């Protein structure tokens, strides 16, 4: 019989490794925040002739935006295209930029997306509040649902640990792949993240529900054994459900990927991570807490 509990350190280590990689990438490359949260302007400009990136950079510096980031965006239709990200442009700056870019051969009018700083701050705050409120709501609900067991709050907390794990993994994966796949952490990412939270908790609850049931008829079995048995009993359900959900998600990702790539990717990463955390993290955390080995655990890993 597979020992899910005994090998817990390996499981914890794997997650930690991914998260640490994410942090390293975030420091080196920066977190790929979208303009939803940073505020600013993003525009795509095309030229009818070859234009050096430096020329575009100089123009932006001239109108007072040396912070602008310019990125090549060649397509088959237009090999001379750039994506410009900058802080929010004022009306006059807009016009000056439009004029200056036209002088070096910009095709069409300047078209840009912009989010002003206060709105971006509000969105970032709103998203953070949404994640926190969802977490608290889930913590309270699970603590309530398991109220008949001793220390129901622990079940809620461990479910929250599992979902925090999923949030961190999703952020880490986005930081790692951000540059390569041109991903963005925007409001849709947060939407995906909240969905993943709901999904991951669903998975965790199924395992906890089995623990709840098995504890009732446990007899002389120790807590660790009960938890391990519960994990084994729910394993095929956990994997099957993830598999069906992933089937659908991958189908959507392959067919409509481009349009909502970030959103679908966070869902896929989240479902995998959510399944992982419900099998390898949540219950193990429960055992570590229950058997009072928290301090010992940290000593050993340190």
């Amino acid at each position, binding site marked *: 019989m597979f020992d899910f509990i005994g090998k817990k350190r390996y499981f914890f280590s794997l997650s930690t490794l991914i998260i640490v990689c994410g942090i390293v990438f975030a420091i080196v490359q920066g977190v790929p925040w979208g303009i939803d949260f940073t505020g600013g302007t993003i525009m795509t400009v095309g030229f009818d002739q070859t234009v050096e990136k430096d020329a575009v950079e100089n123009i932006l510096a001239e109108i007072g935006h040396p912070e602008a980031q310019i990125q090549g965006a060649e397509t088959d239709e237009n090999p001379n295209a750039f994506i410009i990200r900058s802080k929010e442009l004022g009306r006059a700056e807009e016009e000056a930029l439009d004029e200056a870019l036209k002088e070096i051969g910009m095709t069409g*009018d300047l*078209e*840009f*997306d*912009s*989010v*002003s700083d*206060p*709105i971006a701050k*509000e*969105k970032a705050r*709103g*998203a953070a*509040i*949404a994640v926190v*409120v*969802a977490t608290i*709501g*889930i913590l309270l*609900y*699970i603590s309530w*649902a398991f109220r008949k067991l001793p220390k129901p709050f622990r079940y809620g907390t461990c479910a929250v640990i599992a979902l925090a794990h999923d949030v961190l993994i999703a952020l880490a994966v986005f930081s790692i792949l951000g540059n390569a796949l041109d991903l963005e952490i925007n*409001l*849709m990412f947060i*939407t995906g993240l*909240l*969905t993943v*939270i*709901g*999904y991951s*908790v*669903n*998975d965790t*609850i*199924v395992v906890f*529900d*089995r623990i*709840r049931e098995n504890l009732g008829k446990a007899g002389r079995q120790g807590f660790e054994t009960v938890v391990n048995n519960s994990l084994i*009993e*729910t394993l*095929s*359900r956990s994997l*099957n*459900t993830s*598999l*069906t*959900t*992933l*089937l*659908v*998600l991958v*189908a*959507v990702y392959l*067919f*409509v990927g481009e*349009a*909502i790539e970030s*959103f*679908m990717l966070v*869902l896929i990463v989240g479902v995998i991570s959510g399944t992982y955390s419900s099998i390898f993290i949540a219950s193990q955390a429960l055992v570590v807490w229950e058997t009072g080995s928290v301090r010992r655990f940290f000593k050993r890993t340190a």
Partner: protein
Amino acid sequence: MRTRDKVLLLLIVILMALALMTLFWSSFGESIEREELKLGLDLEGGAHLVYEADFSELPEDTEPDDAMSGVMAVIEKRINAYGVSEPVIQKIGDDRLLIQIPGIDDLEEAKSRIGETALIKFREFVPIEPDSSGTPVQSIAPGTLTEIIASGTPVEPVATGTPVEPSVSGTPAQSSGSGSPSYFALRPDEEGKPVLTEVPKAEAEYKAIPAMGTIDGKKIELTSQYFSGKVEVRMPQSSNQPEIFFKWNDIGSDLFYEITSRLAAKPEDSVERRLGIFVGDAYESSPHVNGPIRDDGVITGMTLDECRHLTSFLNAGRITVPLHTLEQHSVDPTLGENFVDWSVQAGVIGLLLVILFLILYYRMPGLIASIALLIYVALVLSVYQIWPITLTLAGIAGFILSIGMAVDANVLIFERMKEELRSGRTLRAAIELGFNRAWSAIRDGNVSTLITCFILGFMGHKLGAPSVEGFAWTLGIGVLISLFSAVVVTKTFLRALSYTGVVNQRALYISAMKEKMLSGEGR
């Protein structure tokens, strides 16, 4: 079969029939006021704009809330005037405005349509080919008209006012008026009554030109900026008919007096005697002018709702509420066209894969769950029809995701059933126990998903992100209906089948190989 199961089975069949009727039978759809599925901006393409309203120049007699609804009414009018379908104009918080205009991906164009300030303009109608005899080209039966009449304040006779030159009355100076001229003709409305309607130039019978007057020798156009104080809806006890009361400032009084005197000289009930009210360049209304009016007057002959509607325009034009752009996005429409097709393909493929998996892995129950899943899809789609949600990219993804999640409840139940069968219970007992034991996990899991749906919906609404809101709705509806389909539909089908001997082979429920390993005595 027990009565309860029969009743449930019947209910499911009826529900299914209703769902299919809603989806495919159009005349039934109309009778339940089915609305067209609205596509979100991300599917249709268009402009997404967030404005902040600046109330600093607001006069003291106006509440910011009223000012905001006026601004919104004006913007809606302007956007609709361009024939754009269903723009979203939504207030966020106290002073924010979210505007989504489908079909326009040129942001500058969109912004110019929304305009910076709202000015209400007044215009006169001039026949394109004036009848030499001076009789009206066409007249409208009295009683069908809205009318502008003086409000109590005695009106001086025309002669004592500033004399109006007859030559001026026909052709007020057009050059200095603002806005492009628009063209009108009388067209029958739904009830066959002739109504003044905006038409292309070629079909025009009348041309609308700015209503102007002369102040200190200068031609000035009458606009809403000359109102003095608030325009109000009143309900005088004498008539018990709602009316709109307005009052002009000094310049407005002079202008209005000159214009109404000129119009009052026109034949009774003629189109030429009407004063056109325009929101920017968009035609709104044209009350008949009862007589020369100077300082204040009322507009009568409208329902209370119509009064309120027109009043919100008149007031909006009276105040200046500068709008500052906070956010702008243009969404590529070509993305949307393909997306709908792609989503349908993705949905169908996803559904088929799930069904294949269910049947291969769970056999008979898998088949039943697949049928339940199809019923689930039909129910969800018909709910979308009855309860008009805006379908967005994320919303479709939410729906497709909910298919995957709908299976979860079934998987939970079947895993439990298998366990019970292996521990030697009869099929019927296994069905009951499987459902009962799985229920607590299903309930807790779905409640936590609903909690996040609720928070998502709230966040989406607060932050002005309709796509997030749409996602929350579709997922929430999906979760609720999946509970029903798994717990009621699948269970009833399984129970119904357990009473018919044909499908009672255990091999249909658990695989024969595993069966050998078990010492179960079966049924």
